[in-house]
């Protein structure tokens, strides 16, 4: 498994998609934090919620889905399976790799936005967060990123078509879950991309606050793990019996 994981991490690092999406996540997160911390009145700046706005959680499932569907798009899946004939182990390695990638990207993004936000707010004479609060936000961001990375691998393996997978993730994250949050919030709390992750992040204000209020972080984490596990199980079952012609 270590070899497979290592190989998946090399695959991840040696394409431009990884660099591009990581750059996008970092730039978008920094922009959001810098604008909010600079332009809002200092009393309105809720740093805890702001630091939970690590947008890598948007890009990581996309990165994972793009990478996995790329195996079919570029027809490299056969050579991957030849090198690692145990397909479930191969899928497990991909899942671990993108969970780990999620952690690394989120760590870089969260650290950057915490630094930028803290510097701006302290420069404006506002109150900054203590280390214990920062650490609490950080581990929640990392946990969400890891789970969404794993989820993206499962979705990509199930759908195989890159455009369908990416579009599907965007529609669920930006249209279906927000719509459910308005119409049936008690259902939306269990959503895989926004609902349950918001519970893990324990956001208590802002538009996402209404979502997270319903699920306690531990329950939200359980729901997110269940989503990732169910997707993995379905993807593994399909991959095992699929003919690679």
């Amino acid at each position, binding site marked *: 498994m270590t*070899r*497979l994981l*290592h*190989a998946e991490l*090399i*695959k991840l690092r*040696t*394409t*431009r*998609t990884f660099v591009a999406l990581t750059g996008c996540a970092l730039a978008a997160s920094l922009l959001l934090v810098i604008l909010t911390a600079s332009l809002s009145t200092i009393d309105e700046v809720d740093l805890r919620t702001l630091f939970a706005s690590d947008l890598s959680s948007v890009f990581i499932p996309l990165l994972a889905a793009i990478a996995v569907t*790329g195996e079919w798009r*570029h*027809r*490299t899946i*056969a*050579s*991957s*399976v*030849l*090198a*690692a*004939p*145990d397909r479930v182990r191969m899928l497990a390695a991909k899942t671990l790799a993108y969970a780990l990638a999620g952690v690394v990207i989120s760590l870089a993004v969260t650290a950057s936005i915490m630094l930028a936000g803290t510097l701006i707010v302290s420069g404006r004479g506002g109150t900054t967060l203590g280390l214990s609060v920062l650490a609490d936000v950080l581990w929640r961001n990392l946990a969400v990123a890891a789970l969404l990375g794993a989820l993206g691998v499962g979705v990509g393996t199930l759908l195989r078509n890159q455009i369908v997978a990416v579009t599907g993730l965007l529609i669920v994250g930006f249209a279906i879950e927000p719509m459910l949050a308005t119409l049936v919030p008690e259902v939306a709390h269990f959503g895989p991309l926004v609902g349950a992750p918001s519970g893990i992040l324990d956001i208590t204000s802002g538009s996402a606050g209404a979502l997270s209020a319903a699920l306690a972080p531990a329950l939200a984490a359980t729901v997110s793990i269940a989503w990732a596990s169910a997707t993995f199980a379905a993807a593994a079952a399909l991959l095992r*019996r699929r*003919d*690679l*012609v």
Partner: protein
Amino acid sequence: MAPVEVRDLCKQFGDHAAIDNLSFDVEAGRVTGFLGPNGAGKSTTLRALLGLVRPSSGSATFGGLRYDELEQPAARVGAVLEDASFHPGRSARNHLRVLAVTGGHPAGRVDDVLAIVGLGDAADRRVKGYSLGMRQRLAIAAALLGDPEVLILDEPTNGLDPPGISWMRELLRRQAADGRAVLVSSHFLAEVAQSVDDVVVIADGRLRAQGTLDMVLGDGDVCATEVRAQDPGRLTAALQRRGHSIQRDGDMLVVLDATPERVGQIAREEHVAVLGLAPRVRSLEAAFFALTGAPA
């Protein structure tokens, strides 16, 4: 036990039998051509061998073990698939690094195989800039990475120019000379005829013939004899009286189903002077078409 054994292999896609009860062996130290027209079931058979396609029944094994049961499959079997594909944004070196790490091969092996296939200078270029021939060479490098005992190549000459095809022939011969079992598929007999020892011919998913190239495609008992005689009319009548079929080809007679010895004997008995006498060897392509039922 042969390095590669296919036994009663069947693969059904819906109502269509892509492979129908196929059995053959591939021996070590020999290049075996796996021949058949497009759609004959060659790629499906090779993919079943490699565990990419699940057989409906029968088995396809390496020394008695399925590909996914092998201890270190990439070190036992190297494969080039027909649609050898790579991530276009990854360099050849990185592609091979991934495979080397997955297969547990030494990192230095990457440079070795790049040198073997002549891609050393282009190793750090992204694959999307590669020609079809360079991609084929990269696929072969990937297959050689584990220094395997068995090589399986599906239409490896696709996209290669004549020097590339010649290089491929030499490579196949060299691999077999080193004791490896080499199975190479092709729908184009002429490309592999010079490099194979044995052939397995299939059509419509069924085995049509198996054996050495000469035995399967040379097929001496159906040869014809070309004869030029001083009096072709008399010789024709004499041959026809003895039950042989004759075709005229200019001033030459082509005697079907008779050896030159038999034709010479009849001419002597009839006191007809023979000006030329030779066997008409059926071309490999003609024999191939006859076996596979493809139009000549």
